[in-house]
């Protein structure tokens, strides 16, 4: 690519970035300018992508088929895809006072397809997690800590993995208690006047907070790394390399 173009492009990017950042100080005209430009570009791209990335390959080509080219075999077209066009366009009747009920048909189809899939995927997604949570809470060895596995391989390693050591049993107790207490917090139709339930629910909430704290902590890294990268773009790639040519 032309180096002058690159400097121009990077300059515009830096301007846009700073323009968007300006909202941190307060809402202002510069931000408003870039915000509207951003929205215009984004909606424009959605319109481009609608055809070029979705409809063209998944609908149009399927409907009319493809020509036979060298090294690329032609496919027949399936006319039934054409029926989706009028059905989809019922959605546009939402603005009609009289026929707006028809806009529910395409939405109903989308919803139905989604709902049916839920029955299909529910167990596949959660079943293995149920199984993994059934952790034994007592050790099956007299040793307390798991030995260091450095340098161990084969059956010996497999045996270590299949053994529940004392410390692991304690961890498993914590695991199961956390799991069941948090689950009890999400029971809605039982009266919490029952002392035991009230107590497990409160404990559940506290344990939940440990989990949330851990999530918070581990996601902070990504947020900061994105900023660091932007700073690297502005100061190193643009100012240092493009402008100062160093």
């Amino acid at each position, binding site marked *: 690519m032309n180096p002058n173009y690159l400097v121009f492009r990077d300059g515009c990017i830096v301007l846009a*970035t700073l323009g968007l*950042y300006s909202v941190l100080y307060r809402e202002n005209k510069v931000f408003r300018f870039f915000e509207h430009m951003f*929205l215009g570009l984004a909606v424009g791209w959605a319109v481009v992508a609608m055809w070029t990335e979705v409809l063209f390959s998944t609908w149009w080509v399927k409907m009319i088929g493809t020509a036979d080219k060298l090294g690329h075999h032609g496919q027949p077209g399936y006319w039934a895809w054409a*029926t989706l066009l009028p059905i989809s366009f019922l959605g546009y009747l939402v603005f009609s006072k009289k026929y707006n009920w028809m806009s529910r048909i395409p939405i109903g189809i989308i919803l139905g*397809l989604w709902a049916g899939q839920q029955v299909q995927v*529910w167990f596949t997604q959660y079943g293995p997690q149920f199984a993994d949570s059934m952790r034994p809470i007592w050790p099956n060895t007299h040793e307390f800590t798991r030995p260091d596995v450095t340098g161990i391989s084969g059956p010996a390693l497999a045996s270590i993995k299949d053994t529940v050591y004392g410390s692991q049993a304690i961890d498993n107790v914590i695991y199961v208690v*956390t799991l069941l207490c948090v689950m009890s917090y999400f029971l809605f139709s039982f009266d919490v006047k029952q002392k035991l339930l009230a107590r497990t629910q409160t404990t559940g909430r506290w344990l939940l*907070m440990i989990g949330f704290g851990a*999530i918070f902590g581990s996601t902070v*890294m990504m947020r900061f790394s994105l900023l660091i990268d932007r700073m690297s773009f502005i100061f190193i790639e643009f100012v240092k390399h493009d402008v100062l040519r160093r």
Partner: protein
Amino acid sequence: MNGLNRILADTVPPPTFWNGVYGSGGLWLKIILAFLIVSVALVFLKDAGPRVRKYVVGGATFLAGAFYVFFYFYPTPLNRQPGEMPQNAGEAVSFWLDDAVPTVGQIANIVAAFLLGLGVYSVFTVHVKRVAKQSADWGFSVVLLLSFFLMVGLGYADWGMKRIAGPKLDDPSNWGIVNYGRSFLFDGLLQNMDAAMFSIISFYILSAAYRAFRIRSIEATILLGSAVIMMIGLLSGFEYGWNHVAHQLPTTGTYAMGELTKWLQDCFQTPSLRAIQWGLGIGTLAMGLRLWLSLEKQGAN
């Protein structure tokens, strides 16, 4: 022509009632007929009474969902190889279901894509109105509409050129003004504005942490404590120093920073995430059932 022969094996289906040859008059006729028949049927339906309406909407929803439910409960032909025949009628059904899944999976995408026009309509009504009335901020609406049309124009022009020229245009040295224009708008501005907005979050995280992360209740303290431990665990330098000290302790290894964060993750983060997720999963399934069977009252109540 090695590639050609290989692809032949199972990708070209035989001609049937349902398909037609690319560009042939027969296929076009079928396409137009299909379009017209469905359109006419829908026009007839428009004045249906409230009862019929309910059945039409509910029926469409039910049928769409029933496919996947049936697919799940009907036996799947495992270990099916290309070119294999079903053993009997029952297995023929499962073969058919298997083949139909990718097709059915596309329908939602396609319908949703057609509905994008509604979104564009919404954007236009707001901003064109503003420009027409010259109300406050109308200049910015002009900016929005202008960048919209530029993006659409250059986007389609670039796509068309790339379809004609093939992979040649993957190389920037063969680019013309249109390709540069699209790349500038998309790869340059749009993608980087995305990144800029994405990175703004870190400012907000800092201010939220300063403003709201306070030891005001047991819960907040617990949240704060585990968050800080995890954050410290992310610092490789700190971890290095900590482990160095931990190694001096009588029981080596156990107090390593990595062990602590891993313990937090395994004993608290994973089970609490799972407990929430299971509840949400059951909730989603229940809501899915209610929607599928149209048990909920339409609209708001």
